[in-house]
């Protein structure tokens, strides 16, 4: 059975109903609002380094603003491909990091059992001692639950995005232990944030980089089961298959 005829196009619908719907259909911003607001938007995202190149991987191919011949879809594919290579092609980098963390784990036994207890739906918590040891710098004020509660919605998203960027930076700088600590802070500060999927995907990377491959796979499988249609799931499936 097909869809019913839309009220806007239905001769049977009342005139007043069609008029109201037509007015809603025609809602549009003031002319050139997008262009006028681009500067502010660019300044905002400039502080959010989403794609941080792992050693050996290239940045996405720049898409010139003059390259009108390149479709958006193609440009986006290039970005996606670059990220995929970052995620998958960085195996050697991960291996190096994992080996390094394995070595350090031998000297820090407290963190190993905690990491091993990672539940699929939760990021493992590190002990305060671990945090002090791996992340001596004081956490930003926006990182704590109290600060998060008092922040406005806009600044909450900014803070959440900043923490995600910090985790990525720490991970790609070869400090997976600090990345895990920041991830735990993020989990506490934004348990129902707007970037939870990105956080969970990143958690897989962080767990693997910390040498906890089993937990990483469990978390990846849990994510895939919960979000089968998410674009992240395809990457995670490749990750699980490669382990």
């Amino acid at each position, binding site marked *: 059975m097909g869809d*019913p005829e839309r009220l806007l196009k239905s001769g049977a619908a009342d005139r007043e109903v069609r008029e109201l719907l037509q007015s809603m259909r025609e809602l549009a911003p003031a002319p050139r609002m997008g262009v006028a607001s681009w500067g502010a938007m660019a300044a905002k*995202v400039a502080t959010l380094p989403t794609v941080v190149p792992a050693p050996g991987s290239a940045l996405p191919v720049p898409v010139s603003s003059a390259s009108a011949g390149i479709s958006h879809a193609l440009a986006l*594919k290039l970005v996606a491909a670059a990220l995929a290579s970052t995620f998958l092609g960085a195996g050697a980098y991960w291996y190096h990091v994992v080996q390094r963390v394995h070595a350090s784990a031998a000297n820090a036994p407290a963190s190993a059992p905690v990491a091993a207890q990672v539940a699929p739906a939760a990021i493992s918590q590190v002990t305060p001692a671990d945090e002090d040891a791996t992340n001596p710098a004081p956490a930003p004020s926006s990182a704590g639950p109290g600060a998060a509660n008092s922040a406005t919605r806009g600044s909450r998203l900014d803070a959440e995005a900043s923490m995600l960027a910090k985790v990525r930076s720490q991970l790609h700088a070869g400090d997976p232990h600090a990345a895990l600590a920041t991830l735990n802070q993020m989990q506490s500060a934004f348990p129902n944030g707007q970037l939870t999927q990105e956080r969970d995907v990143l958690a897989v990377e962080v767990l693997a980089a910390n040498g906890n491959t089993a937990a990483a796979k469990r978390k990846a499988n849990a994510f895939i089961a919960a979000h089968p249609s998410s674009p992240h799931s395809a990457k995670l499936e490749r990750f699980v298959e490669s382990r």
Partner: protein
Amino acid sequence: MSGLQHTFREVYLTHFDFVWGALRRLGVREQDAQDVTQKVFIVVYMKLPAFENRSSLRTWLYRVCLNAASDYRRSAPIRREVATEPTELDSLSGFREDVHEDGESRRRVAVAETILSKLPEAQRLVFVLFELEEMSGTEIAELLGISVGTVRSRLRLARDVFTREAKRVSAQNEAPRKQAL
């Protein structure tokens, strides 16, 4: 500027109007629309590298809009000053023959928003997606994770309320005009 930022700029400039309009139809007030649009694009920027063209870019953007609008409505009930009581709705129905066409359009938008705000959230979403965004029943079912049958039943209920309220407001418009004649 990195490749990502170049791509993001194109996405932003090309789809700003679409996102703004979608948010408005999803219940974001005009004075908040630009702010929420910017929030949507921050999420888009963060998620852009994960976009793998499995769905159309617009469908993907719409999904982000849905989340942002839901968050907006859930977290700011006080900010919603759209009238919800019949008496408030009635105050929007004062039709004047001499109003400018743009003013009339704005009045219609206000009336439509008021009626939409009376619908349960689930019905409102289906109604907006079908009647205003012109998505198919199957697309809506996939987007919202519900069955096509549920889409149709919610649509039917929402249509009943919308039509009934539109007629009521229209009838109240007609009364003063007839008196004036």
